[in-house]
């Protein structure tokens, strides 16, 4: 099992979510984060004084999947996340030892994501 963590633009999320849903990966979690790459600071102005802001809002997408599905997910993220401009973000793949579904207490890979048609997965 792996967990995919992606830092992406806000506007990239919705297309990614929809394609993942179609591919059978409805389960994911997002949060609001602020990121810095080697981007320049943004200078904001307030009553004549300046404030330079080095961090930009991004969406962090987290999604635990079975090993065999990792590439599908990553490809989907890369496909919709790309604008070609700096700041598109990064995707990291992290090992997961174990997984539990709270509702039932079941554990293991099968709880991760429900493929629409498991046979073809």
């Amino acid at each position, binding site marked *: 099992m792996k967990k995919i963590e992606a830092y992406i633009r806000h506007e990239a999320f919705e297309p990614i979510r929809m394609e993942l849903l179609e591919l059978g990966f409805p389960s994911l979690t997002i949060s609001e984060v602020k990121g810095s*790459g*080697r981007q*320049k600071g943004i*200078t*904001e102005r*307030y009553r004549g004084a300046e*404030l330079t802001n*080095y*961090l930009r809002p991004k969406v962090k997408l987290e999604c635990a999947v079975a090993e065999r599905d990792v590439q599908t997910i990553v490809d989907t993220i890369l496909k919709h996340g790309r*604008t070609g401009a700096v700041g598109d973000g990064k995707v990291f793949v992290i090992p997961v030892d174990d997984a539990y579904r709270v509702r039932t207490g079941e554990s293991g890979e099968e709880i991760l994501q429900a493929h629409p048609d498991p046979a073809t997965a």
Partner: protein
Amino acid sequence: MRRSVATKGFFAVLLLALLMPSAAFAQEDALNLGEAVPTVIDELNQTWVIVGAILVFFMQAGFAFLEIGFSRGKNAGAGIAKIFVNFSICMIVWWAVGFGIAFGGDGTIAGDSGFFFQFGREVAGEAASGATAAFFIFQFMFAAVSLAIVWGSTLERIRFIVYPIYAVVFSAIIYPLIAHWGFGGGLFAEIGDGVQDFAGSSVVHLTGATGALAVLLLLGPRRGKFGPDGKPRAIPGHNMPLFGLGVLILWLGWFGFNGASTLETSGNRFAEVVAVTNLGAAAGVITASITIALLSKKLDVGMAGNGAIAGLVAITAPSGYVEFWAAPIIGGVAGILVVLSVLAIDKVVDDPVGALSAHGVAGIWGTLACGLFTSPRLAETVGVGEAGLFYTGSFGQLGAQAGAVAITFLTVFALSLTTFFVIKKTVGLRVDDETEDAGLDISEHGMYGYPEQFIPAPELVGYGATPRTPALGAVSPASTKEEIPA
């Protein structure tokens, strides 16, 4: 103390004059009652008009918060800057030009005196007195309301530079023309026995909404308003409490708007107007709430508020002409109309605040309602037009009202569309997509309206940390994609 001269500040005189009012007059030997009584009557009238003007002023805050509540948080500060600047430009231009065109004489088309209005200067052949100062500022507040109505529909995407340009044209020409026709003894006084528009359902509200329609057609919807299937989607405003504050302030101001349009306290007519106004507004809330609850199973807060506004707009023209019983009907119909109209218009045009419906549709309905409900007693009291269809069986007044609506709409639409077309072709009407996504606050005003919502806490200084001055160059906030690769 009347006309008396204070040599040592106010108070000494105040004590003499106010603590012993009759003594003060005794000083001037004998009070000339034949002069004093008309003077105090006049002063009471002007006091009421100025109280009205002050209430109408506050409607600017009402518009600001109604619109801010209906905007997303990234455009909240822009609503404040907009109100400040538009109101201020309108004031200066109204003083310089608008008032003269609207009220500086009784030509059919426009006035021709009273520019750069002030004392010593003549208006309409008469030397202006203090009374006219009250009238001047009261009528200005109406112009400013009408201008404010134009902008609500353009939220979240219009360029700031559009405001000052159109504000000048609107305050100098567009509104003054209509005001001259409707309030200043011009064109509309010559239709039939005169068009009935007590406080401006048509003159003020329809005029504003028509300007809004003109700009909307050229401006287009906000990004994301219509899906690829062409269906409208909800873009919820960020703050219903602020929206509610706006509506309540508008409602408050309306008591001055309608109530002081009597321009005097004679016969306590203003009290009836205030009561009628409140009945209309209340009915608007109730019917709009029921309508949206029936249609969507939820009592939408914004629609209930739009119902109040629609009720108020509709009762504005009839408020001086109809008996109590008619008010809940007029307001109630407006409440239903506004909901249906918002739902219908939302399919075609992106009007985030519903101004086309609440000020336009309800304004037309209110103006026409005079032709139905005006009572003989009140047509005579005001001295304009005749009683409505339901009293007389005659379509005469209704026809006059419809004529005024048509003329108002066509005139304002033509002038506004032309103005906005020129603006579009020259400086441009709309911000670019990146600016729209980032929000007008940061792009046009340099800072978010709610900085803590958008800027990470560590960047908001004051944690004791004192980072050095940035070594790297700064870029403009509008270019949200310009970053350097890691």
